[in-house]
């Protein structure tokens, strides 16, 4: 159990494609705990991906249940190992920021609703349908596993000068 330091761009790990987690990987449970601890420590942010704490593996945690935008529609704490989005529908634009790219936000278009499959913390295969803010958060975190930042997806530049509200 540990809160880990959030890696900040231009740390090269943020641009790497992460490796699949092997079935016999015994370090994953500790990694998940570190991700959860780090997420909660960061003012309960809504998600953290493994590369953001310096581990190049396909693991993310997402929890939008504590945020105003996600409170009404969420799956609680999601721990996703080897996640994959298998269906995307609709369109939703949100102004995103990222702990790994401080002091900068941008409008990003993403699917409004997704079906995502992953292994949970106990190794069980799960398939869920997420929508709205939770879907946006999952897509943002999964992008980290492919070395993509919201800067790679930003749709408008001109209004991005604001610091996010802490």
């Amino acid at each position, binding site marked *: 159990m540990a809160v880990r330091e959030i890696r900040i761009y231009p740390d090269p790990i943020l641009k790497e494609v992460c490796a699949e987690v092997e079935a016999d990987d015994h370090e994953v449970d500790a990694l998940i705990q570190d991700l959860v601890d780090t997420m909660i420590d960061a003012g309960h942010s809504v998600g953290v991906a493994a590369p953001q704490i310096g581990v190049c593996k396909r693991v993310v945690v997402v929890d939008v249940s504590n*945020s105003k935008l996600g409170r009404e529609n969420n799956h609680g704490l999601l721990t996703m190992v080897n996640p994959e989005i298998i269906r995307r529908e609709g369109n939703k634009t949100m*102004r*995103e920021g990222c702990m790994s790219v401080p002091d900068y936000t941008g409008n990003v278009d993403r699917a409004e609703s997704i079906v995502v499959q992953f292994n949970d913390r106990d190794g069980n295969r799960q398939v869920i349908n997420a929508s709205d*803010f939770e879907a*946006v*958060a999952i897509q943002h975190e999964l992008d980290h596993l492919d070395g993509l930042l919201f800067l790679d997806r930003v749709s408008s530049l*001109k209004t991005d*000068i*604001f610091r996010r509200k802490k």
Partner: protein
Amino acid sequence: MNHFALTIIGRDRPGIVSQVTEILFNHGCNIADSSCSILGGQFAMILILAHPEYTGRESFGDAFAPLEEVELSVFLRTLKPGGETHPDIEGEICMISVYGSDKPGIVYQVTKELGERKVNITDLNTKLVGSADKPVYVMMLEAVLPAGTSVEDIEQMMKHLKQELQVDISVRAITPVEL
């Protein structure tokens, strides 16, 4: 570091940005924030520059003469210390779209109401679209609301402007999310 605001405008054509930035590069200027866009047939550049030694307009000498020779207008302003850092603007962000058949005073009437309520406009774009006989005016602005003013308050305020100006107005909150 000393900071400068540079604005350049002239008839649009390919190559303006590289011509300008080549000069800046050769003088050892850093470009910090910048925004450049086509407005009408003109290309307009606004840049915040930093230079370790230059202190004022005279430091640049006749650096911009080649631009003026090709009919670009150049204006340089020396910033007072601190003038390069944007203030930490706290508050709810809202986006307002105003559009309708063109008539005088759309921008003024809308922004006057906002200014009176201490709403800070942080981005504003207008465009004249539609056909020559039926021109349509579009204005998009983004603003930060002062404490105590809600997006609903702005909506209410815009409702009467909508009547008065006979334009369509929509107001929506923008919530930046940290992921």
